[in-house]
């Protein structure tokens, strides 16, 4: 009988997460055709979403309607392929359904829809879901319950004044059941954050708003795991984790390219990109249209 020590167990867990994230990435890439999707933004936060649903959030198919479940709100919205890939992988709905992407016979389009099992609320308009999450967190406090409320935000989204307004309120009500995760991929839609509307020093901004702040590598499962498991949720303050990520992570041919936010590739290119995801070097130049949509 093999005996594993704790270090090995952790390693096994992280390897499983990596595999799951890799397969989720493949699903996401497959959605970047026949109309396309926000591929770059989805690939930057996918490790975080896979981690949250696999290891952190107390929510699954059986607790999906329980008032004791944890809540996850995808505030940046346009990275919903990452959420759908994760949810379908965990059995919230059939994987087959992802083939309905952009089809009128289903509800799988460029932004989240609550009709899809596992989606807590629709989003797409930036700067909304911290407020909505505050409402949920307040109710949990009123009921003296312990569920956690997690909100994933984009860094470009932090331009919205409503984010900072909501933080004032979260701080005033000492919502330590509220956890924000920032997908810090350094990009707004079309521009680098620091070259358009600089966010730095971001940690101290959040600290000044009364939050407990952590910074991590958003693609390193060991670091993600250690940080999330170390959160206390009883500091009388909301928490924020700034996760440094790379837009387009996993596909070197689109990584950190400003015009590869929304992508619509040919079927042939999709197959090539999946080869690239699994380690092959992309031989041909990507030619598909570069759509800038917001």
């Amino acid at each position, binding site marked *: 009988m093999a005996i594993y020590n704790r270090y090995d167990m952790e390693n096994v867990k992280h390897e499983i997460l990596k595999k799951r994230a890799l397969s989720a990435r493949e699903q996401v890439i497959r959605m970047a055709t026949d109309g396309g999707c926000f591929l770059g933004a989805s690939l930057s936060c996918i490790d975080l979403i896979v981690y949250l649903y696999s290891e952190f959030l107390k929510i699954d198919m059986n607790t999906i309607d329980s*008032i004791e479940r944890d809540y996850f709100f995808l505030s940046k919205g346009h990275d919903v392929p990452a959420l759908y890939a994760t949810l379908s992988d965990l059995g919230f709905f059939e994987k087959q359904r992802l083939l309905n992407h952009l089809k009128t016979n289903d509800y799988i389009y460029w932004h989240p829809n*609550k009709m899809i099992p596992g989606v*807590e*609320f*629709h989003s797409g*308009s930036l*700067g*909304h*879901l*911290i*407020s*909505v*999450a*505050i*409402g*949920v*967190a*307040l*109710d*949990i*406090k*009123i009921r003296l319950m312990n569920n956690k409320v997690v909100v994933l935000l984009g860094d470009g989204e932090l331009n919205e004044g*409503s984010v900072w*307004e*909501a933080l*004032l*309120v979260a701080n*005033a*009500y000492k919502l330590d059941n509220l956890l924000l995760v920032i997908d810090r991929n350094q990009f707004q839609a079309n521009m680098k954050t620091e070259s358009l509307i600089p966010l730095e020093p971001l940690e101290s901004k959040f600290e000044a708003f009364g939050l407990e702040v952590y910074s991590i590598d958003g693609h390193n499962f060991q670091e993600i795991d250690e940080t999330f498991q170390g959160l206390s949720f009883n500091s009388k303050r909301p928490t924020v984790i700034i996760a440094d990520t790379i837009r387009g992570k996993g596909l070197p041919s689109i990584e950190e390219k400003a015009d590869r936010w929304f992508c619509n590739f040919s079927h042939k290119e999709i197959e090539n990109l999946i080869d690239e995801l699994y380690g092959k070097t992309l031989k041909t130049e990507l030619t598909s249209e570069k759509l800038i949509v917001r």
Partner: protein
Amino acid sequence: MNYEDFLTDIALGDERFIIMTAENRAAIRNINKSLGNRFIDTGITEQTLIGSSAGLALRGRIPIVHALACFLTMRAFEFIRTDIGIGELPVKLIAAVPGFLSEANGPTHQAVEDISLMRAIPAMCIFCPADLQDLLIGLKDVLLSPKPFYIRFNQSESHILHSNNFEIGKAELLSEGKDLTILTYGILLNEAFEAAKILSEKNISVRLVNLRTLKPIDEEIILSSVSKTPLLVTLEDHFLTGGLFSIVAELLLKNKVTANVLPIALENKWFKPALYRDLLVNEGFTGRQIAEKILYKLDMI
């Protein structure tokens, strides 16, 4: 009974109600003492107020949200439309000092396009009580409705005895008449009542309709008014565009009905800020001035 007592009673009796405000406590000064943490003041943050009310509604609550009509409907419009509207959540928006009730505040505080904005949201319903009594008669049904509601808050003193038969989508017929119909809502019902009295002294009989809810609207009473009287008057402290006149125009066109309609509304301008009685005189909205406008119109048809 006043609004705050009514609200306190209903909220104490039903755990689902959460009373919220963006630091607009004029009508709810003491409710926090009875409701404890089911009273939430988010400070001067209309967007966060609305977003968090949506979150509370997701948890099965019925948030009753207080803010000034202008900031509620305009500063937070997209949150109302997107979070409450798309979500079809049963949030109740209590809009303070709408229309002429903003008195001397000035155009920054004038919500005279609120009906237009709110009725453009598919799920949203609209309740415009004429006075405190009318408010309290309808409020329970409105709060317990599964729909989101915009309430043009008006707790002015009642001069008219209202019918207790309240139904969402049903108007209150205050008098039958054969010469003209006045369709109105909210605070101006008092002036319409006064105008009807003045006209009756000249042997002109007025069918007076207090619409109560503008969405859903009582289509039947409007259409029957067209067949019963030769003139419809729409009276409102709202821009001509998008309010009651628009609702009536759309309804008549939809039913291929033509009618003589006299709209009395704000025509493409904000009103001159002043105390309530003074601004009515200045804008031509007193009962006497309304009666004069109607007499002039009757002469022409």
